């Protein structure tokens, strides 16, 4: 049986193959990836590209969550200060309605309540990163203005939504008039009534206005829970997003990553194969019959 008398081509092909295997193993080991280009595993590469997009979205959602948290905290803090101020107004109003007050005392109380009104006005016009947070979506307009003792709302009733997960959005604000000029408890209206009552020295009016401030305070507390609830939800959403991110990363590793031990084994196997081929080549390329004929 005649066989191929010149095995050099076969040998070279075998050497190239083992060299290629070595290179592949080395690349996988150094990049930590099994899929370094789409053709290594087209399906995995396609899924991976989707995962990369999702991970990037999650990173953005996490940023949005952080940004919303800061916004909600600042709104919540502002409303907290309003609560304190209103409590002070109620104390002053109750004092004026019940005690025997001389005009000087009433004047002092009036000034106190006017101070509260200004403070609440300022708080209602709170801005965060340059935009008014209680103005609905008209965030570039100062929402509340005091003109001739009457507070007017210049914002709107718009509500913004921010996406914080795929298919999930969170309301970003409440319209300012819902908080400060709600039909079931008007902060500015009741404060104004209290001021008018104090200016007129009308104890009945002062008493009813004080009750109205109390109602407005209750209403405000109800509205305030929006921010508290949302802050809680953000915490939940944040940990869900982080968990999702972890899951995706681990899926990525299964998809395109390589087990380091396996990669190292592959490399040493490829090296062994290459050396074996080299030594086989040395055997095969030994001298021919001509060397023995003298």
């Amino acid at each position, binding site marked *: 049986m005649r*066989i191929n008398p010149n095995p050099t081509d076969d040998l070279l092909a075998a050497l190239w193959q083992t060299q290629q295997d070595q290179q592949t193993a080395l690349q996988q080991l150094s990049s930590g990836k099994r899929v370094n*280009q*789409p053709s290594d595993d*087209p399906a995995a590469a396609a899924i991976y590209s989707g995962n990369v*997009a999702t991970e990037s979205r999650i990173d953005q959602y996490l940023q949005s969550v952080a940004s919303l948290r800061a916004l909600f905290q600042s709104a919540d803090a502002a409303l907290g200060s309003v609560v304190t101020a209103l409590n002070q107004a109620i104390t002053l109003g109750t004092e004026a309605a019940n005690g025997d007050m001389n005009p000087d005392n009433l004047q002092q109380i009036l000034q106190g309540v006017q101070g509260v009104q200004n403070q609440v006005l300022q708080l209602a016009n709170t801005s965060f990163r340059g935009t008014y947070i209680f103005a609905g979506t008209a965030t570039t307009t100062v929402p509340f203005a005091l003109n001739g003792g009457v507070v007017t709302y210049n914002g709107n009733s718009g509500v*913004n939504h921010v996406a914080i997960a795929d298919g999930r959005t969170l309301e970003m604000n409440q319209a300012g008039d819902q908080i400060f000029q709600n039909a079931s408890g008007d902060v500015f209206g009741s404060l104004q009534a209290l001021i008018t009552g104090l200016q007129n020295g009308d104890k009945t009016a002062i008493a009813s206005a004080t009750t109205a401030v109390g109602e407005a305070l209750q209403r405000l507390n109800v509205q305030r829970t929006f921010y508290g609830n949302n802050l809680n939800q953000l915490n939940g959403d944040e940990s869900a997003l982080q968990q999702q991110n972890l899951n995706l990363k681990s899926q990525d590793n299964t998809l395109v990553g390589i087990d380091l031990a396996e990669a190292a084994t592959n490399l040493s196997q490829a090296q062994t194969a290459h050396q074996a081929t080299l030594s086989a080549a040395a055997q095969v390329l030994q001298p021919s019959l001509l060397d023995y004929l003298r």
Partner: protein
Amino acid sequence: MGGLTSSLMMAVQALIAEQGALSVTSNNIANVNTPGYSREAPTFTDNPPVQMGDLMFGQGVNLKSIDSIRDRLLELRILGETQQQSNAGAQLGFLNQVQGLFSNTSQNIGTDITAFFNSLTQLSTDPTSLPLRQAVLTAASNLAADFHNTVNQLDALTVNLNQNVVQSVNDINRLTSEIAKLNAQVGTLKSLGKDAGVLEDQRNELVNQLAQLTEVHVISTEQGDTITTGNGTALVVGGQSFELQAGTAADGAQHVFALGQDITASLTGGRIGGFLSVRDQAIPDGMKQLDDLAGGLATNFNTAHHGGFDLNGAAGQDFFAPITGTGAARNFALAITDPAAIAASSDGSPGSSGNITNLLAVQTNSLPSGKNPGDAYAALVFTVGDRTAQVKAESTASSLSLQQLQDQRQGVSGVSLDEEATNLIRYQHAFSAAARIITTVDEMTQTVIAMGSPTG
């Protein structure tokens, strides 16, 4: 006759025959590394005997012919496998470059699309912020730049492929004219009843090179071989070769013409087939997916953008230049440069982010092509990767089978130095023995001459 003279003649014939065989061996050894060379073997025949009385006397040896040892069937199979292998090889080279455009997982069209929509999500947390609006425009122009970059690189590959097609056509023409010359010589020798061994080897080697360039069919006839392309366009008939021409066709690409007829579509095998398949299928396929993605994205986003109001309360204009169909990816561009013109608002007030929800929905809604933008990009990656993986597997498989066929061919036609060394000794010994006969006959003749001498 059976006389001394006859023995002398036989010895001389033997010397000549062994010398001839020796020269075959030396030619074999000389060509041990010549590609495509088939070993030659001498054929000895004994001369017809002469009857003398009751006895038949052999009349020595004759070196009848020197033949190349080859398996024509095997050579045809090698031809077929060669064209497949170089086809896959040529495709793989370019497909690797194509998939290189989609290999970067941290910065590509897919991540650009996500980054663009992320910038919108970011804007929804603070719709009046000009820096955030500018970030949206920047992300959109990054996306446009990546579309352009990818398209430009595909264009560059197409230009390169066209050059390769022209080069291949030139190579084919050079080879066919050489083959035609050899064909004529082989035909002449064959008509004289001679083995055209070496010339045939040379021709086969050239045909093999031709098969690397395109699929060829070889039909052996009395007048020499006829070589045609896969679809039957004649390249060589006997001693005549027919040139192919490369020329720019209406679509701007290089097409191949035979006698004025466009045969581009029928050139499937070999390198030229590989170049054409990447140029006319793989790249246009990828380009179409990019166009669908770019056009669909621009159209859907513009529609959503029209539904909103910009920072100044004006109705949303086109965000991207309105593009669809072929060339969409090439012409993908922003239509606005003013960050205030982003229509984020749904009610006309600057602080509203209501329309961003609609803009973001473009990311998850299906494009006209039936997939959402992210999936469309993933599908593109899959198509490119899958095509490359298939060609890679094809290339590996045909390399292996070509290697096996070459092994088989070498088994039949390859020069074995061991064998030649053995033959060398055989012929040398036979030569020595024949020479010895001459010496012996000479001595015997001396004896005969001495018999008649008066002094003897």
